[in-house]
C-alpha cells in the first residue's frame, strides 16, 4: 500500500493538480488568444484572426529596443549574480565561518524586501554617493543599465544561493581534496572539479536570475536611465490603448521563448546531471 495517499486521495490530488494547471494557464491562454484577435477591444466575443499585432510590434523600434535592453540587463545581472553566488556558497558550504548564520541571513535577506522600497533606496543611495563623488572624482553612478544591474544582482543573489548551496552540499568534499592532493591549485580544482559538478545548478541559478531581472519593474523604474527595460516600457505605454494588442503579442512571444528555453536547459541539465552522477559514482566507488 502507498503510504502517501489512498486511491481516492490520489484521484482527488490528481484532479486538484489538473484544476490548478488550468487556473495557472487560463490567463496565459487569454493573452495568447487575444494577441491573434482582430479587434482593438480586448473583450469577448472574438472577432477574427489576425497577425497584424505581431507585424506592428516587429516594426516598433522603442519596443524592440526595450526588449534588447532587458536582455542585456538580465544577462549582465545574472552573470554577476551567479559569480557572486558561487563564491558565497562555496564559502558557506566549504569553510568554517564565524557568524555563519548571520552571514547566511544577510545573503538571504533581499528575498523579503519590498521592491518599491528597495528601488527608491537605491536611487537615493546613488544620489548621495554622487553628491560626494561627482565633485571630487568626477564619477557619477546615476542611473542606467549598470544601476539596474546593481539592484537586480542584490535581489537575485538569494535565489542563486538557494539553488547553489544544496547542490554543493551534496557533492563530496573528497573529490576536491583528491584534486588538491594530485597537485591542483585552488582555482584549478574549482575549474576542473567543483564547477563541472555544480554546473547544472549554476545553469538553474542563471535562469532564475535572468527571469527575475527580465520581468522586474519596481526597482528598474527608479534607477533606469535613458534605456527603458521591457517592463518599464510596458508600464509606461500601457495607458496608450492602441498599443495594448501589440503588448499581448510581445508577451506571447516572450512566453513561448522562455518556455522553450527553460525546457531545453532542464533537459540539458538532467542529461549532464545523469552523466556526471555516473562518473562521480565510478570515481567514489
Amino acid at each position, binding site marked *: 500500500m502507498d503510504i502517501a495517499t489512498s486511491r481516492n486521495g490520489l484521484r482527488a490530488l490528481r484532479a486538484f*493538480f489538473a484544476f490548478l494547471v488550468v487556473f495557472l494557464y487560463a490567463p496565459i491562454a487569454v493573452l495568447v488568444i487575444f494577441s491573434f484577435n482582430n479587434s482593438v477591444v480586448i*473583450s469577448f466575443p472574438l472577432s477574427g484572426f489576425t497577425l497584424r499585432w505581431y507585424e506592428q510590434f516587429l516594426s516598433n523600434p522603442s519596443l524592440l529596443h526595450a526588449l534588447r535592453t532587458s536582455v542585456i540587463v538580465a544577462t549582465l545581472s545574472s552573470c554577476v549574480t551567479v559569480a557572486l553566488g558561487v563564491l558565497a556558497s562555496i564559502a558557506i558550504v566549504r569553510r568554517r565561518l564565524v557568524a555563519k548564520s548571520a552571514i547566511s541571513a544577510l545573503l538571504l535577506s533581499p528575498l523579503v*524586501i519590498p521592491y518599491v522600497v528597495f528601488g527608491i533606496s537605491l536611487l537615493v543611495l546613488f544620489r548621495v554617493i554622487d553628491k560626494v563623488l561627482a565633485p571630487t572624482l568626477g564619477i557619477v553612478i546615476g542611473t542606467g543599465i549598470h544601476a539596474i544591474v546593481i539592484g537586480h544582482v542584490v535581489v537575485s543573489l538569494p535565489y542563486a544561493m538557494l539553488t547553489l548551496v544544496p547542490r554543493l552540499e551534496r557533492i563530496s568534499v573528497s573529490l576536491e581534496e583528491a584534486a588538491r592532493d594530485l597537485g591542483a591549485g585552488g582555482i584549478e580544482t574549482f575549474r576542473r572539479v567543483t564547477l563541472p559538478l555544480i554546473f547544472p545548478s549554476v545553469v538553474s541559478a542563471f535562469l532564475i536570475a535572468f527571469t527575475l531581472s527580465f520581468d522586474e519593474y519596481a526597482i528598474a523604474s527608479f534607477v533606469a536611465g535613458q534605456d527603458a527595460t521591457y517592463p518599464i516600457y510596458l508600464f509606461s505605454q500601457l495607458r496608450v490603448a492602441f498599443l495594448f494588442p501589440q503588448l499581448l503579442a510581445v508577451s506571447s512571444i516572450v512566453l513561448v521563448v522562455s518556455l522553450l528555453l527553460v525546457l531545453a536547459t532542464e533537459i540539458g541539465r538532467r542529461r549532464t546531471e545523469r552523466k556526471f552522477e555516473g562518473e562521480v559514482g565510478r570515481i567514489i566507488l
Partner: protein
Amino acid sequence: MAELAAGELTQVLAPRRRTWPGTLGLLSGPLLWLVVFFLLPIVIVGAYSVGALSLLPSDVPGGLEIWRRFLSGQSIYLGLFWKSVRMALTASVIVVLLAYPIAYFLALCVKKRKYVLLLLVIAPFLTSYLLRVLAWKVILGDRGVINSLLYFVHLRQPDHPISWLLYSQFAVILVLSYVWVPFVALPIFVSLDNLDRSILEAANDLGASRWKVFWRVTFRLSLPGVIAAFVFVFIPTLGEFVTPLLVGGTSGFMYGNAISDLFTQGLDWRTGSVLAIFLLGVVALLLALFGRFLQVRRIGAA
C-alpha cells in the same frame, strides 16, 4: 564507505587548508555588494525618514513629527498597514493551502516525470507579471470570460453580470494567489521531497492511519517549508502595489500603493521613507521570529 572515510579525513585536514584570507576572498565580493547596495540604502532611507537628509527642493524638515503622527495613528497609514496585513495574510494562507497539495502530490505521489510536472507549475512565473495580472481583467470583467460563460449557459442576464469579480478585494486576493502559487509550491516541495519515506512507513507499521501519519509526521516535518513559503509570499504581498492598482478597484488600496504614491505622486519622500522603514522593521521582526525556518538547505531548490 570510501566516501565517508574521505569525508572524515577532510574534517581532520580542514583547518590547515582553509585559511581565513581565502574565505575572505570568497566572501568579500558578495558581502561588500550587499552591504553597499542593500544595507547602506536602507540606512539612508532611515536617515531620510528622520529628517537627517533632504534631496528634493520641496522637502520639509522634521521627520520625527511624521513618525509621531504615523505611529499614533493620526495619519491613515497605520490603519492602512493593518488592512494590508489582513489582505496579505488571507492571500498567503490561500496560497499555501493551494500550493501544499500540489507539492505533496508532486513530491510523494508522482514517480515518473516529477520534475517535468513541477516545471509545468513553475513555468507561468516566466510570463510578464503585469500582463498576467491584466489577463485577469479580461477574465473577471463584466463582459469577461466568466460572465460571458454564465450568460452563455443562461445563468445570468448580460445586464446583470457578477460585478464583484473584478475591482474588489476578492480580485486582489485571487490574483495574488495566482501569482504566488507556483513560486510557493517550491519550498514545500523541497521539504516534502527530502522527507525520508522510511519514517512514514515506520509510522504506518506502528499502526498509524494515513491521516495520522500525514498529520503527525509528514505535515510536521514539512512545516519549515510551509513557514518559509508563508513568509515568502506574505512579505512581498505586504509591499505589493501593482495588483491592487490594476484589479483592486476602490477597495484595493494597500500599504505598498501608499509608499509608491508618496514617492512618485505626492513627492513626499519624508512620509514615504517613514512608511518604508516601518515596513522594513516589521519584516526584520518577522525574520527574527521565523528566521530559523529560512535556512538555505530547507528551502533550496533540488
